[in-house]
């Protein structure tokens, strides 16, 4: 069964290469690629854990792979959400053809990143992922998109460079690159703390952690809907996954109380600032993008809470749950926003009433996703926010608990702003109903499906922590 693993990377790459040779068959090949990759991702969830050396070369030289709970979950998450976003993209005729090539490249890079067992391979996959993501942002070739992509490219490269610097420091200290060997050898000293900080700053720039977030609203806001969903739901999760690996595994003895609390502070600022900007946003897609900035704040706070030296084992599952809840809700929300935008031809919030009443399923999906993001029941987000509150109280960090609740209320604020506009029958937009473009019904169903998945998942979290 472990022979499946290379398929996670090679199958999408192989299909992507065929795409280049035979562009006329793009959609057909994309279908094969997506179905195959998603199927393998799901099958891999049940594989036994283990380590493999690709091509028979042993650890110090060759490419080492390993599979554990964390990587399995990330692969599954990427597989399921990726499958649904692909379905949406398949029915979106406005996407240019290279989308599939780049998306398959990004998917392969993410899978390789989750499987990689050593920090240098991670650097390589991180670069591949960054480049495909930047190209995805630029895909519409509009001026605004190109500007956003350029900024994203610079931030992404800077982040990778900082990560590589950390890799060099690690190699200089221990002479190995394998994450497990590094974790075993790790001792607490100044240069290691420096390495952790440098690598974290690099990864945080890629994850758009406050105050390194300013590229994200542009990049995610100006890209096509499917791309925004991929970036917000999946791509930033990859760099965040690495933060988890570093803080909780490789550098486990390093995080001190001060370091951890700085994460809480950064996360809180992101939460409040992002939600505030979302509330102030006059357009739908930038609003959803700013909401990502805020939600990343929750992730960072969660990481800080788990990494706290006093936190006992067994709390990690909630952080994973938070990632899962966010991925489902945010992809649903971006796809819903895309439906509204394409049907109306614009995304000015106050004029979206007419179009959203004509797409009740999309509106419903938006609302459900918002409920999950705000952490209201019944949703995956509710359990995640409960987990955060509980751990916050456990540390007696009262201010943090207040920030968490406040953040939820602000989230409700911007979600219901959209719903208010949709249900307000007195406001007449100047767009004639006949001018609205028809959206393929599958796209409405996909956004609703993702939102519902976030709701159903909220009923049963035990498979995650029971594992």
């Amino acid at each position, binding site marked *: 069964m472990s022979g499946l693993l290379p398929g996670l990377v090679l199958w999408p790459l192989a299909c992507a290469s065929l795409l280049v040779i035979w562009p006329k068959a793009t959609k057909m090949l994309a279908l094969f690629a997506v179905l195959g990759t998603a199927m393998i991702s799901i099958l891999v969830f049940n594989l036994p854990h283990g380590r493999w050396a690709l091509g028979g070369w042993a650890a110090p030289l060759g490419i080492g792979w390993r599979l554990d709970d964390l990587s399995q979950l990330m692969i599954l998450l990427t597989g399921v959400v990726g499958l649904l976003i692909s379905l949406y993209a398949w029915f979106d005729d406005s996407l240019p053809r290279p989308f599939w090539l780049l998306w398959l490249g990004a998917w392969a890079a993410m899978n390789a990143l989750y499987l990689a067992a050593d920090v240098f391979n991670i650097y390589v996959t991180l670069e591949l992922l960054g480049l495909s993501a930047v190209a995805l942002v630029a895909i519409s070739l509009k001026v605004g998109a190109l500007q956003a992509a350029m900024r994203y490219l610079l931030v992404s490269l800077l982040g990778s460079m900082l990560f590589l610097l950390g890799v060099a420091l690690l190699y200089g200290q221990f002479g190995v690159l394998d994450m497990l060997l590094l974790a075993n050898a790790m001792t607490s000293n100044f240069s290691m703390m420096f390495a952790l900080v440098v690598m974290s700053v690099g990864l945080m720039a890629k994850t758009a952690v406050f105050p390194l977030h300013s590229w994200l609203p542009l990049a995610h806001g100006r890209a096509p809907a499917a791309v925004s969903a991929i970036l917000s739901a999946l791509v930033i999760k990859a760099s965040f996954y690495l933060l988890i690996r570093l803080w909780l595994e490789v550098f486990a003895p390093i995080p001190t109380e001060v370091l951890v609390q700085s994460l809480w502070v950064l996360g809180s600022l992101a939460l409040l600032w992002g939600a505030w900007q979302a509330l102030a946003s006059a357009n739908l897609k930038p609003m959803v993008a700013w909401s990502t900035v805020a939600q990343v704040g929750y992730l960072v706070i969660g990481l800080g809470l788990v990494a706290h030296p006093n936190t006992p084992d*067994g709390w990690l599952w*909630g952080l994973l749950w938070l990632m899962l809840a966010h991925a489902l809700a945010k992809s649903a929300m971006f796809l819903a926003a895309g439906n509204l935008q394409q049907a109306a031809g614009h995304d000015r919030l106050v004029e979206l009433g007419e179009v959203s009443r004509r797409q*009740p399923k999309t509106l*419903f999906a938006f609302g459900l996703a918002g*409920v999950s993001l705000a952490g*209201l*029941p*019944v949703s995956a987000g*509710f*359990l995640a926010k*409960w*987990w955060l*509150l*509980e751990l916050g*109280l*456990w540390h007696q960090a009262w201010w943090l*608990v207040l920030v968490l*609740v406040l953040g*939820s*209320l602000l989230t*409700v604020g911007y979600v*219901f702003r959209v719903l*208010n506009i949709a*249900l*307000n*029958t*007195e406001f007449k937009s100047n767009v004639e109903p006949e001018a609205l473009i028809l959206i393929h019904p599958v796209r409405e169903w996909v956004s609703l499906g993702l939102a519902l998945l976030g709701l159903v998942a909220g*009923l*049963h*979290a*035990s498979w995650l*922590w029971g594992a």
Partner: protein
Amino acid sequence: MIDNSLWPLMILASSLIPALLIFFIAEDNKFLRSAVNIGGALIKLMLVVLLVLGIYSGEVYQISWQLMPGLAFSLRIDGLAVMFLLLSAFLWLLTTIYAIGYLENSPNRARFFGFFTLCVSATAGVAMAGNLFTFVIFYELLTLATWPLVVHRGTEKAIAAGRVYLRYTLIGGGALLLGTVLLHAFAGSPDFMPGGYLADLSLPSWVLWSVFILLIAGLGVKAALVPFHSWLPQAMVAPAPVSALLHAVAVVKAGAFGIVRVMFEVYGIEYADAQGMAYVLLILAALTIVYGSVRALYQTDIKKRLAFSTVSQVSYVALGIALAGPMGAIGGLLHIAHQGLMKITLFMTAGNYAETLGIHKIDELNGVGRRMPWNSFAFTLAALGMIGLPPMVGFLSKWYLGIGAWEVGAYWVMAVLFLSSLLNAGYFLPLIYRAWFLPTPTHWPNERRLSRHCETHWMLLLPPLVTALTVVVLGLVAGFALTTLGWVQWLVEQEFVG
């Protein structure tokens, strides 16, 4: 026979599945939607009646599963739950019929009835929640499901009212959630237990108090305790069936019901009394009763007056509980059901005046008794019940509350009750007087012919007549075991003796 653990799920499903179906029924397919709606309500009522008999013969219905480490989603049906379930299932059937008549030919009915039915599920969940955590889930779900109903009309005014509603209930929900998490951190999340579970834990006093304040503030928003009440009169812009629902069964009752659960089955009423919490609640409730009644006196709009009357009347529940004696508890619990029956009658009949004759203001009611005798008859019965006249059920609640206050020596509460009854009479009697004894005006504000045979559409008239009848009949047969009084006495015996 069906496994007992499946019953709670069936109760939930009997409205959840219709709700989901209704969302996808085409807008103009009225017949199918009504059939699903009424069918679901009938099935639910039947299930609940079977449950009443089961509970009475000592069956246990519960199911729970772990959602998180140390945190279980738990549904359990006990005597208290089944009372609330029966009330909601019964009134739901009637309100559904009423709503179908009321919303005939108006837009967005699929959305309306979908959320309307979703509310029943949430209310059933509130009733059946086996621990505080599960309660919070359904409590918030109720907020989310009622919001689209409040803003249903889509006017600027409705949207503004919805915004206020959300602001209050979600901040309240946040407080409730915080209190629950805090309690979970110190005491875990055990199931609700008769007599409470906090007495044996000897938690530090600041925890007990901060949890109490958070929980009561959170629950008080929905129960419209002063100073958390002002969303309720604003929510009046909603269609009449929604007001009936908000005021009689779902939202305010969920808050009151939560207060009952917290005082009886988390803190334990004796412990809460010994710690001084019951007294705080008592003062809060007494304040709300007087304040709501006084404000009601000054309203010129019928629905507004009814709304402030709700603010006042719902607090009888909290008052009865906070008296911390068996008789007061009987009075408070009785009022959960009784206020529901009376208030829903009042709102439906008020809605009928508005729909049939365009009457919204109190001074437009002159002589309406001759034009709509049946409707006015139902209205009068319910209003007299609210004042506390026998043999209407309102008398029973007030009687037991009065004895309860006497029993624990809280004489000032008796004065509050007396004052409140005077005020009730002061704001209800003029309406009755106008309706029956003043001459009919030459024309009504906005008359519509809704039926050839009756004074109004039969679907609008039948439900309030049935509830008005219940208001009288339950008062007359109060001595029997399976009435509200018998049931509540049985509940309180378990609580105070068991």
